[in-house]
């Protein structure tokens, strides 16, 4: 089952090319050109595992989008993407619950490994939650 990634950046060309490259590497890629678009897409019920989010966007910026995503989908892992000038905002993003951040432009290998780490973290989380639920059910049965 391919990892489902949502790519959010205001640069159309960047998003489309990145999507193609990730697609070639067997990932299922959704794209959005703004924070709002990304939130709409998530609200549409797409089962996304990892969000790659540009920090600096006009309108709703990366941090705001991150906060909204984390509020709505706490298990969703977000990797921040930033230029040099906004390392501080990336760190702020980490504080708001981002999985990690990457300097833009970044190497494909690095990005892929970050995505897979994030994906496995999410999977681990979900497993834990499932186990907890199962235990919960088992305990109730045991009652």
């Amino acid at each position: 089952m391919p990892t489902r990634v949502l790519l959010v950046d205001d640069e159309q060309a960047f998003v489309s090319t990145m999507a193609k490259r990730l697609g070639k590497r067997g990932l299922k890629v959704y794209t959005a050109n703004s924070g709002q678009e990304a939130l709409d897409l998530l609200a549409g019920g797409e089962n996304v595992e990892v969000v790659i989010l540009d920090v600096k966007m006009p309108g709703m910026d990366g941090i705001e989008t991150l906060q909204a995503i984390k509020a709505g989908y706490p298990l969703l892992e977000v990797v921040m993407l930033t230029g040099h000038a906004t390392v501080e905002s990336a760190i702020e993003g980490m504080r708001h619950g981002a999985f990690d951040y990457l300097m833009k432009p970044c190497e494909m290998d690095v990005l892929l490994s970050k995505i897979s780490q994030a994906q496995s973290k999410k999977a681990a989380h979900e497993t834990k939650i499932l186990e907890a639920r199962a235990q919960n059910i088992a305990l109730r049965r045991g009652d």
Partner: protein
Amino acid sequence: VSDKHYFQSLHRSIIATVLLVSIMPLLLLVIIVAYRFDVSYKDKTLAHLQELVLKHQQNINSFLDEKLSEVKVLSEVMHFGGEQDQQRLQKLHQALSYAHQRSFVDLGLVNSSGVLKAYAGPFKLGNANYHKADWFKAVMEKDAYISDLFLGLRGVPHFIIAVKFQGGSSPWILRATIDFVEFCRLVEDISVGRTGRAFIVNREGEYQTSSRAGLPKNAPFLPTTVSSGKGGDNKRPQVKVSQAVDPSSGAEVIFITAPLKFGEWTLVFRQDAEDAFKDLSQTIRMMTMIMLVGIGAITMMALILSRRILRRIKQADQSKEMMNEQVIEAGKLASVGELAAGIAHEINNPVAIMMEEAGWIQDLLDEGLEVDENMRETQQSLKQIHTQGTRCKEITHKLLSFARKIDPMVKSVALNELVREITALSRERARFANVRIEASLASGLPNIEASPSELQQVLLNLINNAIDAMEKEGGDLIVSTRLDGDNVLLSVEDSGMGIPKANLARLFDPFFTTKPVGKGTGLGLSIIYGIINKMGGEITVNSTVDVGTAFNIRIPQMKEENRTGETDAN
């Protein structure tokens, strides 16, 4: 030039202040003390001299009275008018000489027709006839008479005391000659200083005492008050003080006069004022000297001190100027740093895209160009790389055109063009802050005289500030230019958070910032203020909290002659 003028006037005012403050009291003190001293010293001196003269007047008067009464008594008791007159007179003369030493030079007995009947004394006068002599006439009239000084028959200056008495049937006159030298001694011991001498004159101004060295032959210059002298001031009715200028020497002379012999004679004390007040004038000369030396010293001090102060001020000014330049430089660096960060980010985006495209092409090449539509994909990617490269080029060109204007020289600047460039540079930053930049530029704006790099700094700073103010919520930034009379108006308005009233007053102060430490230097606006001031313009700010802020800059348009000069040069 104005600096030089300023320093000169500062120099002058320092000197003037020092001189005024230190010399005025000194001068006042000296003048007051000298005046008081002068007045009281003169009063004292004159009073002393008056006392002296008064005493001598009394002495002389009593001397004359005494002699007169002596002669009167003698004439009464001796019962002259007989045969033994000559012998008795001789005896009397001897006795008087013995008792009075030389007061009485001789004695003579004159009958009513003026013939000398008896005589005792050193001169051989024979039977002199005095009936034509003034004194004889006077004594026949008045019974007693003291004559003025005269030479008489003996040819020696002398004066006589004559008394008329009744001897037998006819009146007789006893005549005594007073020793001139003895009499003069009464006056001579009034000798004060170098020129203070006393003498006696009669109504005609003829000396009745020996004229001595330092005294003029006659006394015609005696003030009329002396010769007509009756009365005088109330305190010393007998003694009068007057001052006159001696025409022969031109010196101021003090006269103290007192009447003798019921006003027939006058005791005159005469002294050069200069001599009388010698101590006074010496003291005043000394004071003046000390004062002059003091003034000289103060003046020198003032000169040296003011020069030193001025040097310090100049140094301080220079270092302040240097500091200002450094501050402006620092501010410039800060704004350029901010700009650079913006530019770096702006370039970073196309670079990231190009790298992605390159990576994509690599992916396609790995797969083989003949597969599917890979060829077309590659071509698309290359086109995208070209597009992004063009974008980078535009950015670098903008930056270059900005950087080229680092010339700090003042020249003719087209403000609108400058505004367009800076807004273009800031547009990317504004986009991320959700700020819409709008430039409303008046056409046909005259050029202004300014340094392009400084103007850039002004605009960049204002626009950066405006964007900062709207970063949270976004908004509109309007940069507008228009012509107002001879001035060009430039305003930068934002719809940001506004500036609280408390901060407005300090807005242009150096190092005033509301940004967190490390974010702002607090220099931007103060530097702008300095730059605009230097251009002869002014900057004002209107701000309402939560509504927005407008910075209005008024810059004088270029002067006509300069403009034509510029056109010629072009």
